[in-house]
């Protein structure tokens, strides 16, 4: 079981870091540029760019946006890998042997996704850094202004809130696609359909739970 969990951590978390970093750096950059372009009033301090970037990335973009992307990448991997095992009778083979197939296939994925908050922490850091780079490259404010904004009115609870959300999203990303893969019927075409359905439902549940958690934790 330990080797299975390590394999899943590698597949679900480490193999996703590239896309997470890529998305985070550009999202952070776009947030910084859009904030800067909307600051037309000279009375509004330039350090607001850093502040808005930090708040947007930490509170929403890193946990939620990344999770939607992961619902597509990791979720479809989970559904298609388990679904393919179903249509090729590999799950039946496990059950005939007396192996609890649900436990054997899904439990390691849930444990592996416990490491997902680490990936989101990297997304937070890289997203803010992307905002910094875009801000400097575009000449919207000085480096000092941006860093000052990053440190302004920082509430540590926002990080806690963000990680609570991430942990819930991780569970959703591991379980909903597993359900759709494990209980699918049909052939190869249906594996594709199950992956799409799993992505849609995972995204819907992430969006709704994001709303509920925000209301509960910040409201």
């Amino acid at each position, binding site marked *: 079981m330990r080797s299975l969990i390590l394999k899943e951590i590698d597949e679900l978390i480490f193999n996703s870091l590239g896309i997470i970093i890529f998305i985070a750096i550009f999202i952070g950059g776009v947030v910084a540029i859009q904030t800067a372009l909307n600051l037309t009033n000279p009375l509004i301090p330039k350090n607001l760019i850093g502040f808005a970037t930090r708040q947007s990335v930490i509170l929403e973009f890193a946990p939620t946006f990344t999770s939607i992307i992961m619902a597509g990448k990791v979720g479809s991997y989970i559904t298609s890998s388990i679904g393919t095992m179903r249509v090729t*009778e590999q799950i039946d083979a496990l059950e*005939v042997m007396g192996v609890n197939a649900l436990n054997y296939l899904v439990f390691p994925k849930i444990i592996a996704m416990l490491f997902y908050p680490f990936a989101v922490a990297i997304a937070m850091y890289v997203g803010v850094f992307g905002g910094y780079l875009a801000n400097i490259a575009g000449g919207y404010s000085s480096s000092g202004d941006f860093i000052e904004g990053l440190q302004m009115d920082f509430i540590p609870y926002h990080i806690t809130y963000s990680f609570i959300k991430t942990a819930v999203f991780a569970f959703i990303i591991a379980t909903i696609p597993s359900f759709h893969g494990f209980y699918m019927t049909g052939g190869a075409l249906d594996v594709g359909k199950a992956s799409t359905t799993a992505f849609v439902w995972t995204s819907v549940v992430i969006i709704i739970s994001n709303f509920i958690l925000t209301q509960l934790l910040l409201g």
Partner: protein
Amino acid sequence: MIEVNNLHKSFGKTHVLKGITTSFEKGKTNLIIGQSGSGKTVFIKCLLGLLNPEEGTISYEGKIYSKLSGDERRDLRQEMGMVFQGSALFDSLTVEGNVMFPLEMFTKQSYAEMKERVDFVLNRVNLVDAHDRYPAEISGGMQKRVAIARAIVMNPKYLFCDEPNSGLDPKTAILIDNLIQEITQEYQITTVINTHDMNSVMEIGEKIVFLKNGKKEWEGSNKEIFKTDNKAVTNFVYSSELFKKVRQMYIEERN
């Protein structure tokens, strides 16, 4: 020995198995034959415990499956080996990993002991140079042999095969049939094979159960199938010109 008594299985309004009663003896290759849709796969899945019949009983050495506790069922399943139609090898594991899998899951053997056992069974199915290859890297015939090796690695009492030689060339199909029969006799396993292949029927059918529309239409051995006057059996088994001629020659020889 496996005894089946009045087995019924439905899916919604479709009544697939309609009161099958038969038995499968130890040390014999028992074949289930019948047209597509006759209920063969559903029957074998009921025997494996993958499907629950609505009515009737299946007993293994006198123990009725439906009356067993969860732990007893798990123990019984560890005495079963299954060769699936598509081999059902785990894509992510090598040939050695696939065969070693049941040992890793259910025994406390050291790696050296497991390796010794895996080498033995792979050698038994004539696969000596494929240990480190993945299922996608080997031929269909080799995959079937790996599946047989995985099925027998735990020394099962019962071996089930769902169309073990489908998609194989005639020569490889005969090799697989002979291998299953040898293993059955050597280890005194109760083997149940689901097949469409008439070569298998003639070669290894020590007991044949013919299903038609979910009912047992006929049962007997591969010798008796030549003599039977059952229209449904003769229409199915001797549907090809070749087999019609073989039967004709057999009847002429007897006369």
